[in-house]
């Protein structure tokens, strides 16, 4: 929170003839507020090409294989409430009052056709120190600037993040509700944006990653195995398959007895059973334990494959 600065006078109150302002929020991008080194997980403006946020940059954030630095965009949000409560003041017997502090800014939005799987994933954020960027209706990316050279995420008040499920009724559709309070450490006056005119990426409408989990590997031999890869979405017995993954989306490492990378020879997705993949690799030794995971670096697809292990018979 900024304080009054005595001795320098107030701030100037002019406005240029034309200047951009924020529009209503359409999406939120959640991030872990701090990186492993303790610095804020902000957008380094020097990493943009000529100040332009392009698709390569956006992909490097949204499809970052490291979840600690990844951006997690929400689906489209509706019925946005983003307002500060009334100032907290102290009132006196003569009817006057003095300003003590601003009220808290609370945010609420609805995800139409919200889902219990998404709800569970949102709930995982509760115990974290969360930052948020907003994407507004015009496609501006909004954060805060409290240090030179960065657009930082807005800090969410600890323990205030509250996702929920609103079941459908005869007249309404099922929704997820997201609600949180902005940290009292953050000041509205520090909110800044990268204007939509400087964003060539498809930011508005950007999709987050979808979790992919493996079934039990089958037909395991020293040179390969089959595995069904599904998303968590769908019915218990009718999971939506993770279709379209390719060789370069995976890496395999031997984890026991001799840790090290295993070069994947080939990956084939079944033409009759979507999400059923056959992996082939150079002959491994019986008893080896291999671990399959996302390829490192920037992911190519919108899938985040959970690590799974295969024991060579």
């Amino acid at each position: 929170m900024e304080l009054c600065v005595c001795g320098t006078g107030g701030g100037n109150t002019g406005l240029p003839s034309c200047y951009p302002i924020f529009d209503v929020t359409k999406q939120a991008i959640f991030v872990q507020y701090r990186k492993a080194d303790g610095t804020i997980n902000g957008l380094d403006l020097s990493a943009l090409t000529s100040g332009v946020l392009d698709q390569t940059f956006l992909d490097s954030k949204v499809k970052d294989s490291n979840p600690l630095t990844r951006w997690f965009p929400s689906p489209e949000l509706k019925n946005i409430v983003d307002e500060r409560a009334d100032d907290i003041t102290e009132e006196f017997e003569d009817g006057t009052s003095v300003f003590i502090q601003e009220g808290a800014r609370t945010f609420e939005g609805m995800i139409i056709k919200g889902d219990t799987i998404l709800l569970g994933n949102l709930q995982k954020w509760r115990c974290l120190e969360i930052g948020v960027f907003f994407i507004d209706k015009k496609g501006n990316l909004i954060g805060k600037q409290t240090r030179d050279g960065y657009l930082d995420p807005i800090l969410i008040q600890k323990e205030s993040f509250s996702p929920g499920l609103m079941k459908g009724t005869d007249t309404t559709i099922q929704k997820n509700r997201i609600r949180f309070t902005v940290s009292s450490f953050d000041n509205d006056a520090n909110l800044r944006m990268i204007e939509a005119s400087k964003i060539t990426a498809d930011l508005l409408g950007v999709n987050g990653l979808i979790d992919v989990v493996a079934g039990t590997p089958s037909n395991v031999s020293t040179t390969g195995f089959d595995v069904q890869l599904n998303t968590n979405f769908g019915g218990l017995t009718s999971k939506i398959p993770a279709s379209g993954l390719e060789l370069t989306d995976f890496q395999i490492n031997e984890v026991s007895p001799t840790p090290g990378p295993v070069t994947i020879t080939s990956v084939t997705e079944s033409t009759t059973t979507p999400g059923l993949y056959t992996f082939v690799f150079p002959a491994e030794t019986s008893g080896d334990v291999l671990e399959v995971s996302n390829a490192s670096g920037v992911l190519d697809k919108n899938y985040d494959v959970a690590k799974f292990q295969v024991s060579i018979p």
Partner: protein
Amino acid sequence: MGKPTDNIEDKVLKFGNTQIRKSAIEGMTEKEFLKTYKPLISTGAEQAVKELKKKKIYFKK
């Protein structure tokens, strides 16, 4: 300065629904390739062999 080197990276080749590492192909015989990929490549392993020959990618002798 030495001669520029082609194929520095290990390319991945696509045949139908299968992606295969180029170096792996070069490390197996045609017979091994057909045995492994006949049940897998949706467009046919024999067709893949023809395409490989056109691309001048050769199996191990």
